[in-house]
């Protein structure tokens, strides 16, 4: 399996480097840029990218510096990704570990709930939530995470069932440790591997949902911006200034690609470990 291992190493390194670069760029970028992301300068609207003017990615239809906007938008998109993923981890792990550990009727009932929720087209419910409670920034995190925990719950449950058979859990049960404590102290720490892998696969999904909502004008609102909002604004002026569309679109696609790539690689590695 030497070949497999070699490709695996690349399958993890390339996306990791990409993600690291993107994160650094998004954090440091706005400080390096000579412009900020809000100042309007209609005299210089839709300028092409240029090093001389300091508008490295050009300007948008209101003359705002596109480079800084893409970086600031990236901060929001990646933050939404991380926070919504954390929300989905918390709900998914608690739900899955409880169902898997308790088993029997409770397990059956809890997994029925997951099955029922699975059959719902969620994007529409997120939009419904946005309509009902207004387009609140925090709500976006929570709504997306609260809706994306089903896969996590299923995976965690499966893993918990196999951990439950192990000797140290039996030992804890025999010494009379409470179920909640066993789940917290003995089950959850042993779930780390699976959770990390599926969290990596959740990240791109969540970023995608946020940018989808923002694209429709239902997500992040001005003066804040995100990659989805920027793609939307770029699509309005693409005939005059294609770079206003292509640059944020490229960053969004690159981020999604890196996370998908990493998640794929990690999942393969995990499956190989269990297969052995």
């Amino acid at each position, binding site marked *: 399996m030497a070949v497999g291992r070699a490709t695996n190493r690349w399958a993890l390194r390339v996306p990791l480097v990409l993600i690291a670069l993107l994160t650094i760029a998004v954090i440091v970028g706005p400080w390096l840029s000579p412009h900020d992301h809000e100042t309007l300068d209609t005299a210089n609207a839709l300028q092409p990218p240029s090093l001389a003017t300091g508008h490295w990615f050009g300007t948008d239809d209101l003359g705002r510096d596109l480079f800084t906007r893409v970086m600031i938008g990236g901060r929001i998109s990646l933050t939404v990704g991380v926070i919504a993923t954390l929300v989905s981890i918390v709900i998914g792990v608690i739900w899955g570990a409880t169902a898997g550990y308790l088993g029997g009727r409770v397990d059956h009932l809890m997994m029925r709930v997951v099955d029922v929720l699975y059959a*719902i087209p969620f994007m529409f419910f997120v939009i*419904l939530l946005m*309509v009902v409670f*207004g387009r609140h920034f925090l709500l976006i995190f929570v709504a997306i995470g609260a809706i994306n925990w089903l896969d996590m719950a299923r995976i965690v449950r499966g893993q918990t069932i196999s951990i439950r058979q192990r000797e140290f859990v039996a030992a804890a049960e025999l010494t009379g440790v409470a179920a909640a404590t066993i789940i917290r102290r003995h089950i959850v720490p042993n779930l780390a591997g699976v959770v990390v892998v599926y969290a990596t696969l959740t990240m791109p999904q969540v970023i995608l949902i946020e*940018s989808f909502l923002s694209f*429709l004008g239902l997500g992040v609102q001005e003066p804040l911006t995100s990659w989805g909002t920027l793609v939307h604004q770029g699509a309005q002026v693409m005939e005059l200034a294609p770079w206003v569309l292509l640059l944020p679109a490229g960053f969004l696609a690159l981020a999604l690609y890196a996370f998908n790539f990493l998640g794929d690689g990690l999942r393969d590695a995990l499956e190989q470990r269990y297969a052995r």
Partner: protein
Amino acid sequence: MLHYTLSRLASAVPTLFVVIAMAFFLTRAAPGGPFDEERRLPAEIEARLEAAYHLDEPVWQQFGRYLGGIARGDFGPSFRYQDIDVSELIAQGLPVSLTLGSLALLTALLLGGLTGTFAAIYRNGWLDRALMGLALVGLSIPNFVVAPVLVLLFAVTLRWLPAGDLAGPASWVLPVIALALPQVAYIARLIRAELLDVLASPYVRAARAQGLTTRTIVLRHAVWPAALPLVSYLGPAAAALLTGAVVVEQIFGLPGLGRFFVQGAINRDYTVVLGIVILYSTLVIALNLLVDLLYGWLDPRVRYR
């Protein structure tokens, strides 16, 4: 099969009920009424408006009324546009959305199936690597990025195909491709993985030992068992296509249901949003049920789990 059908039905119907109830009570839990504007209406007018839309009744009664209405295909009036029923909007928009969605699904199945099969046959060769690399890229580019880029390339720069406005079959090409591409990538990956599993099975080795060509083995013996899991992917695919259609319709200006949905969402037109959410959920649940039944029929092992 009867027992299996009944058990599937017994799970789909409560799901549908939960969905409708969740959607309905969410909109009723909204802070502020649907008629709150910047300018407050006089109390009498507001009371009459509420009476006209039955908003003065207890919530349970409203829910009962709404359920009764849905059963008759009546989703109530729009809260924003006078004289327009949600059912009328649906009757206008649904055919466009369904055409778009089914064309995209067909394209995705065809292209994705072909790509996945080729990748599996030449596995680990350069063709396989190139196709799967492309598929991972395709998976990472959302509809709402593909669509404007396609317009920019084929409509604005090359002027090969029209973008926007339904005028003849050519105007469907770009929207359908934009909607189908991520699904093509997903299906290609799925088929490749399944086909590799099947190609490693003993009966394929037996066929090879008998001297059958790769072509015959793949086309006659391997493709159909490998395509079976595709059936169960049809449910999620339909959900993804309906969701994607929302942005694609928006970008190409197609008068589909997705556009009404987004406009309704931006105007906070509760009944429109509620009606479309329920309609789409019903479609997806019904399709999942159909897929389950189809799967049970195609693969009897599923029925006895």
